[in-house]
């Protein structure tokens, strides 16, 4: 069930369709790892964005690429709203890592591990 009490309406704008397609599950996977709902949603959005874009797995069709971009951008804005500079940097480094691995054809690190590691610091 979508936790409407903890996620602002505008933070899911244009992304409702992917809630049941993986974003909701990702949110559940992070919800116990940080007390700020914006940070939890940011982590879920980064994970979902990377998966939508198929980094290291498949070539995303244009529509999924753009939705993935929106997920990543919204995550960045949520972290800015939360005012957590260290997490902003750490999440960006996680995306840099998997993107560089995908570009070089290496096995892509599990994004969930990278993000949970960042949340644990």
């Amino acid at each position: 069930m979508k936790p409407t009490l903890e996620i602002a309406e505008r933070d899911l704008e244009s992304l409702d369709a992917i809630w049941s397609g993986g974003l909701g599950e990702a949110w559940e996977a992070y919800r116990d790892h940080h007390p700020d709902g914006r940070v939890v949603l940011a982590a879920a959005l980064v994970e979902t964005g990377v998966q939508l874009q198929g980094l290291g797995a498949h070539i995303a069709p244009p529509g999924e690429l753009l939705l993935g971009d929106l997920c990543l951008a919204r995550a960045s804005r949520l972290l800015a709203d939360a005012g957590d500079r260290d997490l902003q940097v750490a999440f960006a480094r996680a995306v840099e890592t998997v993107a560089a691995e995908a570009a070089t054809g290496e096995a892509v690190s599990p994004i969930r591990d990278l993000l949970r590691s960042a949340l644990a610091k």
Partner: protein
Amino acid sequence: MITGRRLDIATTRATEFIDVTPRLQAEVERSRMSNGRLFVQSLHTTMGLLVNENEPLLLGDFESLLERVAPGGGVYLHDDFSRRAAVPDDEPANGHAHCRQVFLSPALTVLVEDGRLLLGRWQAVFAVELDGPRQRTLALQLDGEFAGAAARRDLVELELARQLAVDPEAVQVPMRRLVEAGGKRVRPLLVTLGSRLGPRADALRTATLAAAVELIHAATLVHDDYVDESPTRRGQPTVAAQEGAGRAIAVGDYYFAKATRVIAELGDAAVTSTIAEAMEAICRAEVDDVALRGSYPGDHGSYLQVVRGKTAALMAAACVSGAQLAGAAPPAVDRLRRYGELLGTAFQMADDVVDYSETSGKPAGQDIRQRTLSLPLIYAHEDHEVGPQIRDLLNGELNDADVSRVAELVKSSGALARVGEEARGLARAAVHALEGVELNGAAAGFDELAHSAVDRVS
């Protein structure tokens, strides 16, 4: 560096010698060009240009000379409308004016040294009205060295190169190829200009922010080119065309993330928020843009909705973040935001017009082929004469001949001139938005950028 602009002149008499020397000098000063050439071109067949002495009796002699050469009451084949095809209803009998123009120049060059027009003691530059009174326009191009701009640009270029140099080759090489292929660097310039409004402007931190903003822009281009299936960008194969879609997606993601990190590491929460909000606006508009292609070519409202996100948001954020990083006062920041929004919209409209020129650097008619929202096409589509033909063509699969035909119809509809005028109006409004703001010597830069954004050929 070349920059362009327009000089509007309202003439008041049938034949009139307008000394435009002071206005040309003002344009040179506004551009801050120190040394180079000023090209002036009349955009009319009954207005010429002349360099001579501004002495009233001599000007009377010139007028008499033109009258003798081609008398106003003479007989001209051009005035026999019964023998001409497609004569507009408002066509004047002005064969004499066209014949007089033969003896004048449609364009001229004036050298500029130390910021001054290089003219002899008695020389003045005249625009010569031959069929007035009318609203006239002179096109200007300034080609040369511009004070101050070079040093700031060099610092941003160095910072861009430095930021790219440390990245893995798989992402660095394609991005460096794109960045080094050119680009106008409008967003870094906006960051730099914005920083002039604050008391804590730091050249290195500003250059870091400016380079990161340019990387965000470049990353959007990499993803756009994949989505639009564009073969070339800046005269070179796109990252997707050269490296494949998978690599293009990864390169775009890498630089979105890296730019976000570099900006966050600057440690200014307001700047981080400004850029993050702009990135979200861009991505939301990209999604909207693709969705709106179902109702292609769309309307003015949907066009503005997409352009405000895709282009104007980052330009506004560039202005604002530069000012915020330098500690500018919130009221000035708000005005800068307005300037950037208007400039970005004007810039995109001008870009749409350039898409119909041979000098765009992109394949001709690319916007039409890719069904990208484009204001000239929207206006032409609404035109009662060419609109039905355009609708018929757009309803089917577009081959090369169809794309060329649509482009011809758009050109013939007057839509390009209409969009150009709308863009110039927005550029003027952008400059107006900064009136009363203490710009600390950046006024000429903002002014110049607004004009060059809309008066360009590529």
